[in-house]
């Protein structure tokens, strides 16, 4: 069905995707890498349009124009703090497209009577994975926007298991009775429900894992669609994305010291059994004021800033940039300590700080910054909690035991900017806040940082 020229064109675009992904993983070449990927996609589209299989163009042009307009508007308008939910949304659309492609070719093939076991099985996989990706990503989108707080109902796991069993049954029926499109649509429906059920209970700090996993699934849905259409490019490009998503998922799990099944199937860890907040905090927490923090910073030679999701919520990245510049003008050495799962998606903090024009050379990874905290005069923690909780090192019974953390408690003074002493995602109190060298600065992250910068100017 495909001409040789089309196949060769697909080879060129597969090579561009490979080179693009390779360049995307190096800071110096990443922009070029993204352009390689876009060029590969353009070649794939042009080559397909030139192929003999395309007979009419009205619907294609309408879809291309509409999709381009919507995608471009969303991409240009999104704020950097909202990037995680937009990526989740795009990801869902990719999965949805794979479902529709599989459904379209499956129902055509059924009409022509060219049903083969292989094609039906591939169509079943594409519709199931695609549907899970589609609704799962929409739920993730809602959760990341914080407009969706629903986290499921009692007995949901039973429904999920039943749904998974139903999916196997419908997929089998699709292969046996390929002339009947009903099975495909039932499978899509079950997949859609499963996507909702699996992603709904997951929240908070586990979000980066889910986003990475959905990213991987959207690639696998494209692979399955490639098996339906007998298309080499879909198989290759989909596999590359599937593999890269899996690697990112694994990196995120390691950073949280949680296994993937634990993230997917066990509820968020709760700190109910540990010491209560009153025991940890009573009489030991010292609060401070922006003026006092400015005095501390005035004499500091080395300052570390540790941002968490609170920085994104407070839109404090530009205020933090101003503070860092002011400190540098005074001769202090300022670095940023970035925990791998800080924020709502992998690398979220890096994007926000880069938006504020903080050079990525100043952003120091956990393993590199941890040995330096002992020589740090002042560490400022903004809107981070569990990732700086020393309990992870000290208490083996804690829900976050063994999770790699930033050892901010080892610096001379720790200033924690936070609205209150409320627990983080893990739901446990943080002894850091009650530490001998810790000072709490209560308030909105951005306002607090602006106040400190102002006070520093007046010294």
């Amino acid at each position, binding site marked *: 069905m495909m001409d040789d020229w089309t196949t060769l064109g697909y080879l060129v675009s597969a090579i561009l*995707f490979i080179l*693009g*992904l*390779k360049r*995307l*993983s*190096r800071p110096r070449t990443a922009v070029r890498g*993204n352009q390689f990927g876009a060029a590969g*996609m353009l070649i*794939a*589209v042009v080559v397909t349009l030139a*192929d003999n*299989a395309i007979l*009419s163009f009205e*619907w*294609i042009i309408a*879809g291309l124009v*509409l*999709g381009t307009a919507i995608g*471009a508007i*969303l*991409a*240009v308008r*999104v704020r*950097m703090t909202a990037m995680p939910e937009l*990526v989740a949304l*795009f*990801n869902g659309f990719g999965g949805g*497209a794979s479902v*529709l492609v599989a*459904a*379209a070719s499956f129902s*055509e093939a059924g*009409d022509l009577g060219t049903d083969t076991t292989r094609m039906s099985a591939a169509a079943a996989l594409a519709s199931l994975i695609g549907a899970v990706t589609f609704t799962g990503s929409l739920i993730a989108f809602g959760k990341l926007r914080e407009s969706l707080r629903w986290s499921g109902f009692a007995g949901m796991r039973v429904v999920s298991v039943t749904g998974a069993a139903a999916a196997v049954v419908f997929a089998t029926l699709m292969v046996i009775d390929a002339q009947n499109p009903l099975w495909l649509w039932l499978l899509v429906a079950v997949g859609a429900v499963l996507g909702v059920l699996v992603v709904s209970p997951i929240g908070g700090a586990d979000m980066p894992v889910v986003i990475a996993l959905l990213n991987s699934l*959207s690639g696998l*849905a494209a692979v399955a*669609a490639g098996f*339906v*259409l*007998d298309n080499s490019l*879909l*198989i290759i490009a*989909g*596999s*590359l*994305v*599937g*593999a*890269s998503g899996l*690697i*990112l998922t694994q990196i995120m799990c390691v950073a949280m010291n949680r296994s993937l099944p634990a993230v997917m199937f066990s509820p968020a860890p709760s700190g109910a059994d540990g010491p209560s907040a009153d025991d940890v905090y009573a009489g030991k927490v010292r609060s401070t004021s922006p003026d006092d923090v400015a005095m501390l910073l005035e004499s500091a030679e080395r300052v570390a800033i540790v941002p968490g999701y609170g920085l994104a919520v407070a839109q404090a990245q530009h205020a933090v940039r101003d503070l860092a510049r002011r400190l540098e003008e005074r001769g202090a050495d300022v670095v940023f300590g970035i925990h791998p799962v800080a924020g709502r998606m*992998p*690398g979220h903090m*890096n*994007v926000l700080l*880069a*938006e504020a*024009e903080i*050079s990525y050379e100043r952003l120091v*990874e956990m393993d590199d910054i941890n040995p330096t905290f002992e020589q740090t005069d002042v560490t400022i923690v903004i809107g981070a909690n569990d990732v700086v909780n020393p309990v992870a090192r000290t208490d083996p019974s804690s829900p976050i035991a063994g999770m790699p953390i930033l050892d901010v408690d080892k610096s001379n003074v720790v200033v924690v900017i936070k609205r209150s002493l409320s627990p983080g995602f893990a739901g446990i109190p943080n002894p850091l806040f009650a530490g001998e060298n810790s000072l709490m600065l209560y308030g909105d992250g951005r306002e607090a940082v602006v106040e400190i910068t102002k006070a520093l100017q007046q010294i």
Partner: protein
Amino acid sequence: MDLLIAVTLFVLAVFLGVELITKVPPTLHTPLMSGSNAISGITIVGALVAAGADHRTFTTVLGFAAVTLAMINVVGGFMVTHRMLHMFRPKRRREAASDESGGG
């Protein structure tokens, strides 16, 4: 395409993907994710065939919807990745770049 050849392609591409991505620095996790996400919009190729191969109206409508969704994924994904990566560039180079593109 022979099924075994298709499976071979799949397995080799997975290994290649793992090799390509393993050493990516955390700074680039978000752009890498959104860039690879845009590449997963490759399903646009299948969508084009479904929408343009003069099938029944129902199939054509499915194809049209698939083209639209995949195109949002592709165009939005590459553009948003470009925006993010642009912020990672050193300031001087960034200003030079926006001068070249007429202040955009």
